[in-house]
């Protein structure tokens, strides 16, 4: 499949009917280079190289529903990364855009220290959709900020220090959240981080049980580990941790930043198990894919109330819970409730998962495992180096999916939840075609990968960046030559 073919001959995509300007603008090679150079100079050159190596250097335009168009190639792709779960309600959801435009017509961000009817309304709606018991609300400016707020609340209310997190956990990049990240990759350059954080293997009751005691401030968990590579916790695991936290007076914090807002087939992932945390951190899709927002819901436990009596301003947010943000989030919630979006996520998730399982059983030398719940699905490959190759193969087949830097052997499929059956089938077809392309390439790579040294090289991020960039420049050269030949004709 030729990725560089002209936009006009593209498959049915969202671009033509999206009607931004009536016709599609495609960036020339030079223009794209200029953008990349500007980005490299003022933001990050390493990032540009890294993304190019992984075939993730697309420029998003025409962002509508489940798709966007790469401005450089004219390819329309289904977004299966969705900013790690930000576009649950679909990209440029008309209801959400209308709410944003309406808000822009009359308000601004507002002031946290004054009263806002929209803040009050969003708090009420969040409590209505949340698991029973989570009755109170703080706002935050995003996921990391919400996690920082959650951990501060737990430490402040219990007067204890120890926070138990899990190996490979991902909670964000601000001070507390970073200290709770269970992957060295994000921590090692910035140490020493906060003392008092302990890490235990995820979804292993025997590992965590001895750690929870009377000096535990909190246990913090993602009900499904996202960045780690999509690992769902079992219901029994969560239920037993709930019991242990109750027995020892420790707070149970769920980080539902990625799993919340219908992603897993329930409004919140913890509903699968029926376990209600004491504190729940939310962000991502609450902003409707357009406006930053975040929230922390909590149970009005005596210890928390006592702490807040003196420290109600312990984590005020100027930039979360803004008037515009709340009006956008209210529209997101209304859309989800009216369309019962979690049901669609469950249905589509089952469809996608069944097909990927089938693909796995057909290709045991490529796919190791398929995991997930609802439309939060991960495919684990046999080798790490397959991640960038699969990204490229999927892109050529009209699906944008990113492997995680945290777990390059896992490809995440987290499309917008508004995906239709046809969209899901298009993802399945792309995955099939991508695996087919891999099969053609593997006879070259696999024999080499049997040599441990070569495998280590292939799996090394740095080697990949250099190697794949070199391959990319060959491709570019070929592209230039083809273009020249065409012009000559």
């Amino acid at each position, binding site marked *: 499949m030729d990725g560089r073919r002209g936009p006009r001959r593209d498959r049915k995509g969202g671009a033509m009917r999206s009607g931004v300007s009536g016709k599609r603008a495609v960036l020339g090679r030079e223009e794209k280079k200029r953008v990349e150079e500007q980005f490299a*100079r*003022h933001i990050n*050159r390493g990032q540009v190289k890294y993304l190019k190596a992984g075939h993730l250097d697309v420029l*998003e335009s025409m962002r509508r529903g489940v798709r966007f168009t790469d401005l450089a190639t004219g390819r329309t792709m289904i977004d299966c990364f969705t900013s790690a779960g930000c576009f649950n309600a679909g990209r440029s959801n008309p209801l959400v855009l209308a709410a944003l435009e309406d808000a822009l017509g009359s308000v601004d961000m507002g002031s946290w220290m004054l009263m806002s009817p929209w803040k009050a309304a969003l708090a009420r709606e969040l409590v209505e959709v949340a698991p029973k018991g989570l009755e109170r609300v703080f706002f935050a400016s995003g996921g990391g900020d919400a996690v920082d707020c959650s951990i501060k609340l737990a430490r402040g209310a219990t007067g204890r220090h120890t926070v138990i997190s899990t190996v490979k956990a991902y909670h964000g990049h601000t001070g507390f959240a970073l200290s709770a990240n269970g992957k060295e990759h994000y921590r090692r350059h910035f140490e020493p981080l906060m003392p008092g954080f302990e890490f235990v293997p995820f979804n292993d009751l025997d590992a965590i049980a001895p750690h929870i005691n009377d000096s535990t401030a909190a246990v913090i968990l993602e009900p499904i580990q996202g960045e780690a590579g999509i690992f769902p916790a079992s219901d029994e695991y969560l239920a037993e941790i709930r019991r242990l936290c109750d027995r020892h007076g420790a707070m149970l914090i769920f980080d539902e930043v990625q799993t919340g807002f219908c992603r897993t087939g329930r409004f919140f992932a913890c509903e699968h198990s029926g376990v209600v945390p004491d504190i729940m951190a939310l962000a991502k899709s609450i902003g409707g894919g357009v406006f930053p927002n975040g929230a922390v819901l909590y149970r009005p436990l005596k210890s928390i109330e006592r702490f807040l009596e003196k420290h109600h301003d312990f984590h005020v947010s100027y930039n979360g819970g803004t008037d515009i943000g709340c009006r956008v989030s209210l529209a997101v919630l209304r859309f989800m409730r009216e369309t019962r979006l979690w049901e669609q996520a469950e249905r589509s998730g089952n469809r996608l998962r069944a097909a990927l399982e089938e693909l796995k059983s057909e290709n045991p030398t490529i796919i190791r495992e398929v995991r997930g719940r609802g439309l939060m699905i991960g495919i684990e490959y046999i080798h790490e180096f397959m991640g960038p190759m699969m990204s490229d193969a999927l892109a050529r087949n009209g699906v944008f999916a990113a492997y995680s830097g945290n777990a390059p052997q896992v490809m995440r499929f987290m499309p917008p939840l508004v995906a239709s059956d046809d969209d899901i089938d298009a993802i399945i077809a792309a995955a099939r075609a991508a695996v087919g392309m891999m099969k053609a390439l593997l006879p070259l790579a696999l024999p080499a990968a049997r040599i441990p040294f070569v495998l280590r090289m292939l799996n090394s991020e740095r080697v990949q960046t250099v190697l794949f960039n070199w391959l990319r420049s060959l491709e570019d050269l070929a592209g230039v030559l083809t273009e020249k030949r065409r012009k000559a004709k």
Partner: protein
Amino acid sequence: MKRSGKSGKKILEDYRRYFPSSFVEEMRATGRDIVESERDGAFIYDENGKRYIDCITSGSIYNLGRRPRAVISALKKAVRQTDQGNFPMISIEKAALAARVAAFSPAGLECVVFSVTRGESVDFACKLARGSTKRPEIVTVDGSWFGQTGFALSLSERSDRGMYGPLIPDVVTIPFGDYASAAKAVTGRTAAVVIEPLQTENGCRAAYPEYLRELRRICDRVGAVLVFDETQSGLGRSGKKFYLEYSGVVPDVLVIGEALGAGMFPIAATVFTKKLNRFMNAHPLIHLSTFGGSDLGCMAAIAAIELYEKLRPWDNSETMGKRLRDGLEKIVRGRRGAGTVRGSGLLQAIDMGTIEKARAFCRAAAKRGLLVMPGAVEASSVIFRPSLLITSIQVNAILEAAEKAAGGL
């Protein structure tokens, strides 16, 4: 404007139900139990149409006044063209804003990492310094206030800091303005010296230019990174584009606050040198922000920067700041227990002597249509930070309300 259709009483009920009840009490005690309804330029209106001059500006976010038209129309246009985007991706919007921010910033600061909120920007600044220097220690000064997140909290002077267990280790706090302590504390172990050149929440205590120059010299000597947080003093508020211009010192890292989004979109930035970006280039995607530098936010901020460049509000801030300061000095002068007026440009604080008096002043001012707040660090101070586009008539109105509020105490 579209009314919420709810009375203040009902909103107050909701607030009591969903937020800490002590928060509601605090609002009442400082005259802030006001429903923020319409907003326009230097003013806000409550649901009954009562007008207030906004001298809180949500912590110096509304430097261009409430609802600047140019930013709104740019944002409205952008809504139909883009969204927040996939955060790890290269984007035209991000690249364009980064170039604009670099050109807007002091020479030498040309690399940018975007964030949503101040704390996040400060946390990143600390991480950048540690990552680049491979050193652990962060030196800051007393009286600081950097935000709510982990590193920011660890560096801030606040009474509740001890409530959250052990924070970021290897943080050293030295007395503000003390040359000898700085020379002693900043060593080959020091990754960064982090300071607000003008400590807004600490009664607008400003660093002497020579102190900032000395910090620059010390950092250069030992190879430490100098970080300025100009979240509140930057973008024209102090009477210059950035307060650092009074000293001529350019730090290695500058935190630009949420005034970057002109109060229409939450966006902040950390700008830094090319040299420091070597570390980030070697470790791409090591520090991420889902909402930081969202494509829509970039479009809003580009429009805001264009407006800043067009209106040069720092000039008005300098002129009106002088007028405000002179007026406030007259009010404070001769009052028993009340101290001096401190600050720069349209960022001024009066010292009311006690915390109770400061709160009473805020309450009395609100009654007279003036919204002000006490400092978060120095709670006996009251801070004045209006729109930078304020007129002399509006400054007179602030002073009149302030005088009456002070007179009643």
